[in-house]
């Protein structure tokens, strides 16, 4: 009897247990499915919110040349979209989509122009120049292509080539304002300053709603020792485009030069708020705050400036002063040592670059400059120097040795702020 009861109990418990296990497994499965659904929702929600610039960019890449000529503002839109596509999302997918678009829009310069803008935004200047040259073949009368070449050369620091391309663009379209602005930037040297001023003024006449010309004129006037004129230009820049951080920076530096430190701090703070990653505004704000004895603000702004540009000896030196005033001697000394090293590196770099400019055929200066970069853990700076030198003297064993060293060395991590 007891045995039968035990068997029956066992059977019942087993059945109930089995049902519970099946239900638990089913619930587990449902829970997994629910989690999957939640994940799907989050993914789709993120995709829905994300602004994908690629379809719009591809659409501009397939636009016929005549249509682009009718709406010049589309060049700017293409530049902004290309920069967004290059920095966000899947750059390889973007490149593939643009290449497919180029296949379909043969005979038009649009795909080459858009591809060039995309490559330049990715820092691949050589590919950008190839694309712009291809575009120029398709549309030899389109001034945008030499203009974009000029801007690319300017980004590469090749001033002579940039100037030639800007002039070529202006020969095709004398009212192409960006080419005038490019020339004004190139001529921003003591010797060519009057020319730069004339070119920037030409830009301002052609683009009355733009702030860039006034901001550059403010800088040129400051360099020429004309702070009152610089102030007027700075004000014109902020009035033309109040959301332009560079305009507020120009106004702030002009105000500082005329002795209006309170106004300068306000303008520089506005520039820093509009673009928190613009290191010069943070630095000037910190420097002026330090002068005014506003130590907390100075430390905050200088810390931000050094975090944004850790290679700047000047920024670190000023930060060291602020730290010293705050009483933090240990950190101040560390910053001062880092600053001294960076300033010495910078001085030597400038000296050797000048020597190379004056004696482009003297390979020893290239060797010295490349070795200097390598000694400071900057192989990415040494490589282009070595490539230029090797193009001149391909067989040099010293250059080969430095090249090997450069390709083995990892770039130094930025020093801690």
């Amino acid at each position: 009897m007891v045995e039968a009861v035990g068997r029956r109990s066992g059977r019942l418990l087993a059945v109930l247990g089995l049902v519970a296990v099946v239900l638990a497994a089913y619930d587990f499965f449902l829970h997994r499915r629910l989690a999957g659904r939640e994940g799907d929702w989050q993914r789709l929600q993120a995709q829905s919110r994300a602004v994908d610039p690629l379809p719009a960019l591809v659409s501009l890449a397939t636009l016929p040349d005549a249509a682009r000529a009718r709406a010049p503002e589309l060049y700017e839109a293409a530049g902004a979209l290309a920069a967004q596509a290059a920095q966000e999302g899947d750059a390889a997918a973007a490149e593939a989509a643009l290449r497919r678009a180029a296949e379909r829009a043969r005979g038009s310069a649009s795909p080459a122009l858009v591809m060039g803008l995309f490559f330049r935004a990715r820092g691949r200047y050589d590919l950008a120049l190839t694309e712009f040259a291809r575009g120029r073949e398709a549309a030899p009368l389109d001034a945008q292509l030499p203009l974009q070449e000029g801007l690319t050369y300017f980004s590469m620091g090749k001033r002579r080539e940039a100037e030639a391309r800007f002039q070529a663009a202006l020969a095709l379209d004398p009212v192409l304002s960006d080419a005038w602005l490019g020339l004004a930037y190139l001529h921003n040297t003591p010797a060519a300053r009057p020319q730069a001023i004339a070119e920037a003024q030409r830009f301002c006449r052609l683009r009355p709603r733009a702030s860039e010309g006034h901001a550059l004129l403010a800088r040129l006037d400051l360099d020429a020792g004309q702070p009152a004129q610089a102030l007027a230009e700075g004000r014109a820049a902020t009035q033309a485009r109040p959301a332009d951080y560079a305009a507020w920076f120009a106004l702030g530096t002009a105000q500082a030069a005329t002795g209006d430190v309170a106004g300068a701090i306000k303008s520089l703070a506005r520039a820093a708020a509009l673009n928190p990653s613009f290191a010069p505004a943070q630095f000037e704000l910190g420097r002026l705050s330090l002068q005014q004895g506003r130590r907390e603000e100075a430390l905050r702004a200088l810390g931000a400036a050094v975090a944004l540009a850790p290679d700047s000896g000047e920024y670190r030196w000023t930060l060291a002063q602020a730290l010293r005033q705050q009483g933090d001697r240990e950190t101040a000394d560390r910053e001062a040592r880092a600053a001294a090293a960076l300033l010495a590196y910078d001085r030597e770099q400038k000296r050797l670059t000048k020597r190379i400019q004056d004696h482009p055929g003297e390979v020893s200066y290239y060797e010295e400059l490349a070795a200097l970069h390598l000694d400071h853990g900057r192989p990415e700076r040494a490589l282009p120097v070595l490539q230029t030198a090797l193009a001149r003297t391909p067989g040099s064993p010293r250059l080969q040795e430095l090249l090997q060293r450069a390709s083995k060395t990892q770039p130094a991590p930025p020093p801690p702020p």
Partner: protein
Amino acid sequence: MTPPSPQPERSEPGSASPAPAAALSPLARVGAVLLAAAGAGLLVLSTLLWSRIIGWGEKIEPLQREQQERQAVAAAAEDSSSAAGRVRLGIFLAQHGQGEAALVQLEAAHALAPEDANAAYSLGKLALMQGDTRQALPPLQAAAALTPGNPQARLHLGLAYLAVDQPEAARQEFEAALQHDASLVEARLGRALSLWSEPMNALAGPALQEAARQEVQSPLGRALQVRAWLALADPARAVAAGRAAAAAQPDSAAAWEALGEALVASPAATPGETEAALQRALELGPRSAAAYEALGRHFLRERQFARAVEAFQAVLRLDPAAPRLHAALAQALASAGREAEARAEGEAARRAETARQQVAETLAALAGRPADRDLSLRLARLYAAQGLYDWAAAALGPALRQSPADAALQRDLRLYQEMARE
């Protein structure tokens, strides 16, 4: 004798029942109860999980549809050599809150096919929805010229004229729209409002009241309704209509702009609500001249003169030719104690009024000779002198279509295109 059949044992009261559970040991009984409870709990849990899965499914479905549409539109844009694909992409982007990118696509479509009325209309309509009347007017003019029988194109052109203070031109467009579609409530409302805006037209009051009471659905229609109540000096009804518009279309710049304008006129409105409504309008349509103007008037009322000056300067960057805006800036500058600047701005207001009259005369002359080269050039130069470079470029269009090889026209067009860049 039959043996007596065995009687079932009678259970004693309180003793175990003959049911199967009775056959279980007490421990098994506890286990069974626990397992049954666990099973029931698990069943409840699975029901709950299912209901949540179904709930998520309902949430996911529209997003999946949107994703499919996004992929289809992107594929169409990649393949498209036509304006239609770009218009589709532009409309899709606008519907998904990417107004700037949408405008670029529609501009590209309009540049690709200037004779495509749909591309012109879509570009003008989107710019108008974002409050950018200056950009809206030229493509809407082109759309109305290409398809004079399209009531929507005529209606939107009328709305654009109304926004730039050209009530007579607006009324003509609203009447043309009503000729082709008498059921257009917005056109009736717009016509009544433009009649009211014309000077010496006191008889328009009853018609405007009647039109303002009509049921409207579109954001621009609701905005018109708000302006109608404001014109009738009934800010309470204007605010009510504005709130209804913003509640019905919370993503519409036009709705928030209208609510903001109503709140500025209402003595009962709180400064916080007014500013918030107008800032929302500017978030959705950063080039909304009406929102900046209302914001300027709000700051003037609140005696925040520096902010009023900034707001009026912003609106003058968008609409540099409006005399009333120069006058408003002059007032704000004078209130802020900037007398010299206020006087200069007062002068600018007078000059703008003169230029407005000259433009009106030239437009009247052009109505009879639309492709006249000299008149087109004169109009373009008048616009350029007022800082309306995009209108100047558009004004050369008819003459250039007539003589596309005219070097002087081409040179001026290129210059105005460049000057219009921002």
